[in-house]
């Protein structure tokens, strides 16, 4: 009797005391993140963590080939664009089902996009659909739907645009255009973000808030052999350092937050390191905005001077080499990037002489804003030191992200802002995405994101013209037009482009696939394409 009790309690104690080791088995993988997943509602989700999951939970009319920026029809079987570029007709694939069992029909597409634009949804993606007829009416509250989307039958969706939009196909591939079933959204009563229902490659099976999410593959997905894993579990609240150590032990397959700088060198130099580190470029530019409405940055010479003052190599070193110095607005992978453009080289003497020409030989005082999450304050301090070397005394304000954004959007408030942590990553791989909100006149308003308050009406006109070139045959010309727009903008020096950060993801040895599906330019992690070796 005693022996049995003893055995029982010892076993119980042993089980209790054993650390919970989730050993990743079979074709189910474990992914970790530090921050909790905010939402899986495609009309609302807009951070780089839930971006990949939403891409996989739902389907959209258009999508990209894995690891590339090449558009292909997805939910749509085929499509036609009218010669004037104002009408797009899509024919839907047949037999695609939501995870609730129902077929996906054209009215679902219309509903989903209207929902994304409707102010009641409070979604951040409404602006992308600006070209569709009826956009102003819906966002202004005068209508309840988008007149420009027609569904003549269950298998056809027709878009009528108010102006030609060369980015429209990209817009239909973006998360906000994901198709959702109306009855599920209404049944969830505002909690659709936690109870998603889609028609994508995966289905959400379980979500324990603050701890983990479990995704299982959708056996009926319309593309064969996709996805290649049976399911994935996302564990949240994991510190990157801890996640990495668990990865090395085999408990974790993908450390979503990447490798902390301190461990980077150690792992890079270890025998398995090369296979574990995925180091890829992203469509990212980190920059310092120079407020053209605040003295002395209203003077072109001053802006050029500070551009010459920054030692970008040193900053790259602080980032442990996980970035490359940037010389222009667009990142190298983006169409329209001008590899011949020389930009402003690091030249302290030139910086000083330009300041002298501007009448500020003794330098001046200013303020540099940054967010308060590491390593942004450190980079701000490095920039501060570089500026001090040419006589510019910058006071640093490291604030919560919301405050920096508010300061940037207030006229005359923030002379310089280091965009790190909030830097621009392209929503889709098209150069226009780098213009509108951050360099165009439309963004230079109260609450806008054009923190340089740079407004060049002539460039705006050229931008609109470039975006009207929706004819695919003209895409080469279009890219050329954008290239010139950006280099001309850069000559005005509204920014100091500093780095193009690379994303570093850590994956366990059993994970297979090319680097570009772990750092997919449009998906971040492409859950559809990764596989276990």
């Amino acid at each position: 009797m005693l022996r049995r009790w003893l055995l029982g309690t010892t076993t119980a104690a042993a089980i209790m005391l054993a650390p919970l080791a989730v050993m990743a088995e079979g074709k189910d993988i474990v992914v970790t993140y530090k921050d909790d997943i905010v939402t899986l509602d495609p009309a609302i989700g807009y951070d780089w963590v839930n971006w990949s999951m939403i891409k996989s939970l739902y389907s959209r009319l258009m999508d990209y080939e894995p690891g590339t920026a090449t558009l292909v029809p997805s939910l749509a079987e085929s499509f036609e664009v009218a010669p004037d570029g104002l009408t797009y007709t899509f024919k839907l694939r047949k037999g695609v089902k939501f995870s609730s069992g129902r077929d996906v029909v054209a009215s679902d597409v219309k509903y989903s996009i209207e929902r994304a634009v409707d102010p009641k949804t409070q979604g951040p993606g409404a602006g992308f659909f600006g070209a569709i007829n009826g956009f102003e009416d819906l966002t202004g509250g005068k209508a309840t739907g988008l007149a420009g989307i027609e569904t003549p039958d269950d298998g056809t969706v027709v878009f009528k645009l108010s102006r030609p939009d060369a980015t429209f196909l990209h817009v239909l591939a973006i998360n906000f255009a994901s198709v959702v079933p109306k009855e599920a959204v209404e049944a969830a009563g505002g909690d659709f973000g936690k109870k998603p229902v889609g028609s994508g490659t995966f289905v959400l099976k379980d979500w324990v808030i603050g701890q983990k999410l479990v995704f299982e593959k959708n056996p009926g997905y319309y593309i064969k052999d996709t996805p290649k894993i049976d399911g994935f579990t996302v564990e949240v609240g994991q510190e990157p350092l801890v996640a990495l150590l668990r990865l090395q032990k085999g408990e974790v397959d993908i450390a979503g937050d990447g490798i902390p700088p301190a461990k980077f060198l150690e792992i890079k130099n270890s025998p398995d390191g090369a296979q574990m580190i995925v180091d890829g470029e992203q469509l990212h530019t980190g920059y310092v905005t120079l407020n053209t409405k605040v003295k002395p940055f209203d003077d072109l010479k001053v802006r050029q001077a500070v551009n010459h003052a920054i030692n970008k190599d040193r900053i790259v070193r602080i980032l442990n080499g996980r970035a490359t110095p940037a010389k222009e607005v667009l990142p190298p992978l983006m169409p329209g990037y001008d590899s011949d453009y020389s930009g402003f080289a690091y030249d302290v003497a030139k910086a000083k002489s330009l300041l002298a020409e501007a009448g500020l030989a003794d330098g001046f005082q200013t303020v540099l804003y940054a967010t308060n999450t590491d390593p942004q304050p450190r980079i701000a301090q490095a920039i501060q030191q570089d500026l001090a070397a040419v006589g510019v005394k910058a006071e640093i304000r490291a604030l919560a992200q919301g405050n920096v954004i508010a300061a940037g959007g207030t006229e005359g408030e923030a002379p310089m802002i280091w965009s790190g942590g909030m830097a621009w990553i392209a929503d889709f791989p098209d150069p226009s995405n780098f213009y509108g909100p951050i360099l165009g006149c439309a963004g230079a308003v109260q609450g806008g994101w054009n923190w340089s308050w740079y407004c060049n009406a002539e460039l705006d006109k050229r931008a609109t013209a470039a975006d009207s070139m929706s004819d695919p045959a003209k895409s080469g010309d279009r890219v050329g037009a954008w290239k010139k727009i950006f280099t001309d903008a850069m000559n005005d020096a509204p920014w100091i482009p500093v780095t193009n950060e690379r994303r570093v993801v850590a994956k366990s040895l059993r994970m297979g696939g090319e680097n570009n599906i772990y750092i997919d330019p449009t998906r971040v992690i492409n859950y559809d394409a990764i596989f276990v070796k």
Partner: protein
Amino acid sequence: MGILRSLSRQPAALFGLVIVVAVVVLALAAPLIAPFSPDDQMFDGLTLEGAPMPPGGQFLLGTDTLGRDLFSRMLFGARTSLIIGIVANGIAVSIGLFVGIVAGYLRGLPSSILMRFTDLMMAFPALLLAIVLAALLKPSLWIVAMVIALVNWVQVARIVYTETRGLVERDFIMAERSLGAGHGRILLLHILPHLVPTAIVWGTLGIATTVLLEATLSFLGIGVQPPQPSWGNIIFESQSYFQAAPWLVFFPGMVILLTALAFNLVGDALRDILDPTQRGRG
């Protein structure tokens, strides 16, 4: 200075006093002692791959992630901690004294309201409040000091209130009143002097709390603005290198501990000396 003599008789208090003096001296002498400027990001301060240097050679305690000398930064960090400690605590004790005295001296409704307000402030989750304020305002040395003061004055107020109430009941105060002495005179000449020991004790103990709170806020990234060094923000900036460069966490951590400990020991001993009725409490 009989107090000092009594202090030095207790070994723990003596230890604390020595450290307090040492910290103050080092902080005051920082510009003279520091081998480098605390803001100087030196090329030699990082290894070729960009990692901080360990203690040794020209860098007594090593360097931080931007190549700045840790020893120099810690010396200037002492200034930050002490300034905030004195300012924040000074404000906290002043507010606490004011509220406590007024509430204790006046009776009836005003007193009730003040004490209810004090209870209200006590119900705020202190750290959370400090974090919200520091994160959402524009942090600077003074904002951090204000936030800490706002969170710390309540304890002082409560104790001062109880003491003032006790004093007001005493005969000699009533005698003064019957002789026609004005309120101001009574408060200044009779009540306030009795509260000085309490103020000193809680002022000293408060510095320990303040040093810890400031370090915590800086650790969360919402303390003093860079590049001003604070023991807490040194650890904040070095977290990701904790394994590779543990000295960046260990040295500032030890110093925070020793300083808070020193002020706690001295404050506690002062309490024993100056106010025997409170001995052994807490």
